[in-house]
C-alpha cells in the first residue's frame, strides 16, 4: 500500500533500483568482511601461547599490502555508489515543462490541497486526498502554514520537507492507477502520527470528471433533516474554521468541507469516512486524534444526527 518496493512512478522506480544495487553490494561486502573476521578469529584458537608476537619486516609488509588493497577496494565501491547516485539524482532533477501543478500546504495536522485554474470559479480546494491523472507529470508546490512537515508518498517519490518561510517542490508521474498512502515524515507535534494522506491516481477521464464535480459548489440540502443539519452547522461556529463553497461558511483554518462526503477518510487518514465515524469525530476529536485543534461539540443526539446527515450530502 505504501512501500518503496512497489514503485508506481518512474521516479520511485529509479530509486528502488538504486536501492537494490546498493543492497546487493552491501550484502556482499558484509558477508566478505564477516567471513574474513570469523576466519581470523578462529584460525588459531588452539594456540594457547601467551608470548607476544614480534613482526618480521616481511609480515609487516604483507599485512600492510593487504590492508591497502582492502581499502582501495572499498574506495572503488564507494566511487561506484557515488557515480550511480549522482546519475539517479540528476535524472530525477530533469522535469517536463508540461505538467500539472498542485499546491499542498501542511497544517498541524492535515494537508490542504489546491488545484489552480485560469477560471477563478473552477479553483478546487480539498484536504488530505490528492487526485492526479495517470501519466501526467505532477509538480507539487509545497509550503507550510506552521511548523515543519514532510510530504512522503513512498510509492511515488522520496520526501520533501515543508518549511515555513521556504518553498519546496516534489515531482512524480504516477504510471499505475491506484490509491497510494503517504504520511507526514517530519516530527510536527502531538498528532504527527496521525497526519496521513492519499494520492489517488486515476485515468485521465476519471480524473477530469472528479475535477469537474469537485469544482462545483455544494448543493443546498433537500430533505428536512439535512436542512436542520445545515442550521446546526451554521449556529455552532463551524464556519469560523471550515469552508463550504456555495454557503456562507468561509473559514480557512480547517479542511474545506465542500465535498467532504466524497473523501475516503476523515481527520487526515485516521478514520474511514462513515457517518458513525463522522459523529464520533465531531463529538470529541481529541479522543481520536490527541492534539487535534478542532474543539469537541457535545451536540444533542438529534442535532448530531442532523449535522451528520447534512455533511453526508456534501458529495
Amino acid at each position, binding site marked *: 500500500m505504501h512501500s518503496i518496493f512497489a514503485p508506481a512512478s518512474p521516479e520511485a522506480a529509479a530509486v528502488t533500483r538504486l536501492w537494490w544495487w546498493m543492497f546487493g553490494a552491501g550484502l556482499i561486502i558484509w558477508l566478505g568482511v564477516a567471513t574474513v573476521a570469523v576466519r581470523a578469529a578462529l584460525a588459531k584458537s588452539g594456540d594457547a601461547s601467551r608470548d607476544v608476537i614480534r613482526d618480521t619486516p616481511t609480515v609487516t609488509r604483507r599485512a600492510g599490502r593487504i590492508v591497502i588493497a582492502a581499502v582501495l577496494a572499498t574506495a572503488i565501491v564507494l566511487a561506484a555508489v557515488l557515480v550511480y547516485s549522482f546519475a539517479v539524482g540528476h535524472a530525477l532533477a530533469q522535469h517536463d515543462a508540461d505538467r500539472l501543478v498542485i499546491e499542498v500546504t501542511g497544517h498541524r495536522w492535515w494537508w490542504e490541497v489546491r488545484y489552480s485554474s485560469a477560471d477563478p470559479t473552477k479553483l478546487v480546494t480539498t484536504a488530505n486526498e490528492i487526485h492526479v491523472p495517470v501519466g501526467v507529470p505532477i509538480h507539487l508546490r509545497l509550503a507550510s502554514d506552521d511548523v515543519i512537515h514532510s510530504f512522503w508518498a513512498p510509492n511515488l517519490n522520496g520526501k520533501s520537507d515543508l518549511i515555513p518561510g521556504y518553498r519546496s517542490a516534489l515531482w512524480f508521474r504516477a504510471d499505475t492507477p491506484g490509491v497510494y498512502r503517504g504520511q507526514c515524515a517530519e*516530527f510536527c507535534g502531538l498528532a504527527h502520527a496521525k497526519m496521513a494522506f492519499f494520492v489517488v491516481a486515476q485515468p485521465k477521464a476519471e480524473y477530469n470528471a472528479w475535477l469537474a464535480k469537485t469544482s462545483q459548489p455544494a448543493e443546498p440540502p433537500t430533505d428536512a433533516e439535512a436542512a436542520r443539519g445545515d442550521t446546526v452547522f451554521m449556529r455552532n461556529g463551524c464556519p469560523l474554521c471550515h469552508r463550504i463553497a456555495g454557503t456562507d461558511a468561509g473559514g480557512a483554518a480547517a479542511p474545506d468541507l465542500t465535498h467532504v462526503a466524497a473523501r475516503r477518510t476523515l481527520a487526515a487518514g485516521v478514520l474511514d469516512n462513515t457517518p458513525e465515524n463522522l459523529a464520533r469525530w465531531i463529538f470529541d476529536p481529541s479522543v481520536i486524534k490527541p492534539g487535534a485543534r478542532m474543539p469537541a461539540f457535545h451536540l444533542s443526539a438529534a442535532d448530531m444526527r442532523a449535522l451528520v446527515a447534512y455533511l453526508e450530502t456534501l458529495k
Partner: protein
Amino acid sequence: MSSLGSDAPGPVTLEAGDIARDADALERTWRDQPGFWGWLCTVDHKSIGRRYVVTAFAMFLAGGIEAALMRTQLARPENAFLGADRYNQIFTTHGTTMMFLFAVPMMTAMGLYFVPLMVGARSVAFPRLNAFGYWTYCVGIGLLYVALLTNHAPDTGWFAYVPLSETLYAPGHRVDVWAQLVTFTEIAALCAAVNIIVTVFKMRAPGMSVDRIPLFVWAQLVVAFMIVFAMPAVAAGSTLMLAADRAIHMQWFIPARGGDALLWQHIFWFFGHPEVYIIFLPALGMVTPIVETFCRRPVVGYGAIVMANIATAFFAFGLWVHHMFATPLPELGESLFTAASLVIAIPTAVQIFCWIATMWTGRPRLTVPMLFVLGFLFTFINGGITGVMLASVPFDRQAHDTFFVVAHLHYVLIGGAVMPLFAGLYFWFPKFTGRLLGDGLGKWHFWLFLIGTNVTFFPMHILGLDGMPRRIYTYLASTGWGPLNLLASIGAATLAVSVVLFLINVVRSWVAGANAGADPWGAPGLEWAVASPPPPYNFVHAPVVSSAHPLWETSGALPVVTGLRTDRREILITTTFDARPDARHSSPHGSFWPFYLALCMGVVFIGSIFRPYWVLIGTALSCIGLFGWGWESSRPIERERVAMPNGPVVERT
C-alpha cells in the same frame, strides 16, 4: 637516557625499601580527606572518572527503560499504553539521554579515568575543572529527570527543530529544560576535552613521544579537539539562540519575523554529526588495545590508525547537510555532502581492516572482550553500509526520517559504541575494581545482546522502507506494520535481559570476583603497570617508555625517573612532541568550590528558565566560588624548570 636530566648521574637501581617509603609518603599526600567531605571535594581523576562511568551507565539504563516503554507502546497497532504526549516526552528524553547524558559523558569518563594512567601521569592537568565538569553534568541530569517525573520533559525531539520548539508551538517550559540541559552537558564535555588535551600534550611519561602514544589516548585527544570545535555550536544555538528566542523574543528562527527556520538545522547538525564521531572514535580507541592484548601482538598499522582518527575528525565536520537532504537545498550543494559522507567511510574502513589484519597475523583468544569486538565488527559494518546508502541523496529522500534511519543509527551507535564499550568494561573492570568480571555470565550477556540488537533493529530497516516514519506514537493496523514491530519489541526485551545479566555480573564480581592483580591479561599499556585499583598517586615514580607497548618491551620493572616531591602534590610536565621532562608543577588538593560553582551554574541556567533575574543571583553567587577557587590557586606557584635531580633509574619490584 641521561639527557633526561640536566646533569644526570646515569642509571641507578632503586631499592625496594626506598620505593615503599616513597609510596607511603605519596599515599599520605595524594589520598582524599576521609568521610563525606572528602568524597564531595575530591579532585582525584580516578574517583571522578569512576563516578562519571557509574553515572553515565545509570543514564544508559534510564535511556534503556525509556526505549523499553517506547517498544511496549509500538508493539501493536493503536496501543493505548503511553499516549501521544507521554510518548513524545519519552522519545525526546531517550534521545537526549543517550546522546548527551550517556554516550558522550561515558566516553569522556573513560578518558578521564584512563588517559593519565595510560600516559603515566599522576593526575589530569586540571583536577578541579574535572570535578566541576562532573558536578555540572549531574545538575543537568537532575534537571531533565525532575522534569520527566513531573511531566515537564521536553517533547520536541532531541534535535528540537524550530519552529516547533518555539513558544508559539511549544508553550510552557519543556523546551527550555532541553535547551539548558544541553548547556550543562556542553560545559561538562568542554571541561573534559580541555583536560584531556592538556594532559596528553604536557603530562606524558618521559619518552612517550607522539609516535608512542597509546591509540586509545590518540582517539581521546582527537575527540577532545572535536568537542572543542563542535560543542560551542550547539551551546550557542541552544542557549544564545533558541532559549533567547523563547525567553526574550530574539526571533532568530521565526520566519514571520524575518528569522530562518532552516538556520537551526545547520547549527544543530554542525554539532550533531561530529557528535556521532565524538562517541564513536573513543570506542574504536578501546578496540585497539583489546585486539592487541588478546591477539598477542602490536596492532597492524599504528600510523594508519592515527591518521584515520584525524581524517575522520576532519571529515566529520563536512557532512552535516546529509541530515537535511529532504530540505529545499540546492542539488549541487547536496552532492558535495554526499561525496564527503562517502569519503568518511574510508578512514573507518582503514581501522577495521587493520584490526582484522592484526587478528589474522596474531593468535586471537575469544575472551568476552574479544567476543564484543567481533560483535562490534558484524553490527557496526552493517550500520556503516546503510550509512553509505543514506549518503545517496535520492535514496535518502526515501529513507530519511523513517525507521530505516532508526535502524541505521542504532546499528552504528550500539554496534560502534556500546559493543566496544562493553568490551572495554570487561577489559578494564579489573583495573577499576581489582576483580575480574565473570566469564560465564559475560558470554550469556554477549550472545543475548548481539541477538537482541539484531532482532530489535533489523526489522526496522524493512519497516522504514515499507513507509513507517520515525517518532510516531502509534500506527493503524491497516498499515501492516504490526508484526515487525512486535518482533522488534521482542528483541528489545532480549536486550533488557542481557543488560540485567551484565548488572548481576558486575555486582557479583565487584563483591566476590576473582582477584585480578595488576595485569590480568598480559596487556601492553602503562595502566597495567600499577596496582588494581590504582593508588591515588597512580605511579610511585614516573615511568620512562621507549615504545608504544611499554609493558611488552621490558622484562621486569619499568625504568623510571625520580625527583618529584612526595610530600607535596607535584606532577611532571614534559614537552609536547618528544615528552622530555621539562618542569615540575603543583597539583591542587581537594576543593569544595567545583561543587559549589556547579550549583551556581544550576541557579543561573535553571533559574533563567523561569525568571531572568536568577541569572544575576546565580552570577553573584558564582563570584564567591570563583574567589575561593582563585584563592586556593594563589598559593605560591611551585613550578620549576627541568631539574630531575636523579636521572633515569630502574625500579626494582
